């Protein structure tokens, strides 16, 4: 199905179009990351409707738009967004592969200090894995950490 020309259309309206016209895509990928040494590993799961929109192309704004809005929100005294038009008027990104979509989502929804310096420590701060590589049950969930022996251990968070 061809995506309508959406530049200038409110992003929310585009998402409504995507929900009505696209088949949700439940990804097998998960993003495991640690943003604090005092906290357990976090697991980011893509939304199936969002992934469908990413794979389709022509719907989502460039990820940099979200960074601009985040900068505005971080200003002292922030009350409300005044540059929401960036979401709606910026040319949408083309169709992505599932791997590219995950990279986009990491840069959108993971803390910047995690993905910008994901490999700066003794072990990765962020790992993309398959759902099957996570522990099968949630036992000791609040103690899960990224394994320090990724190369030899198929379980990346345990």
């Amino acid at each position, binding site marked *: 199905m061809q995506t*309508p020309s959406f530049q200038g*259309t*409110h*992003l*929310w*309206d585009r*998402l*409504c*179009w995507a*929900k009505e016209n696209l088949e*949700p895509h*439940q990804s097998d990928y*998960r993003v495991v990351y640690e943003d604090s040494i005092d*906290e*357990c590993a*976090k*697991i*980011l*799961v*893509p*939304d*199936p*409707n*969002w992934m469908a*929109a990413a794979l389709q192309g022509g719907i*989502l704004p460039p990820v940099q738009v*979200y960074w601009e*809005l*985040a900068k505005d*929100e971080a200003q002292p005294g922030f*009350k*409300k*967004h005044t*540059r*929401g038009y960036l*979401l709606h008027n910026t040319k949408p990104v083309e169709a992505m592969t599932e791997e590219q979509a995950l990279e986009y*989502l990491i840069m*959108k*929804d993971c803390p910047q200090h995690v993905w910008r310096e994901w490999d700066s420590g003794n072990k990765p701060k962020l790992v993309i894995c398959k*759902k099957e590589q*996570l522990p099968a*049950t*949630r036992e000791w*969930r*609040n103690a899960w950490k990224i394994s320090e022996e990724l190369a030899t251990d198929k379980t990346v968070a345990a």
Partner: protein
Amino acid sequence: MAGKIVADTLEHSTAGSVDTQFVVNGSAKAWGHMNGSGTPAYGDSLNMASITDNGTGNYTQAFTSALANVSYSASGTNGDGSAQTGGAICNRSAVYATGSYGFTTTFTTGSTPAAYDPSDVSTSINGDLA
């Protein structure tokens, strides 16, 4: 966009009229239904980009189309499919953001609330979009 109707008012032949801004303002801007046990995943949703499992009974939903401010209204329910879910509640986290909504799920046994991973979590966000 095909099928677009531009109107400020909807009028019924006998029941009166309603300003369409009530429809726009009153509609949920984001909602999601997910299974929070195992690896959480959305079953169905609108305007969600991802769900992050932060630990037992602790989640962050990220929106695709951000809210205009952090004063939006959020509501949620959770349960595990049993008759024992009367004390199960969703609590909004202390950190508010326009692009995401953090919450915890707890279950009260006796007088002690404890974090838990429900098999069924529903949330709905009302407010103004950016």
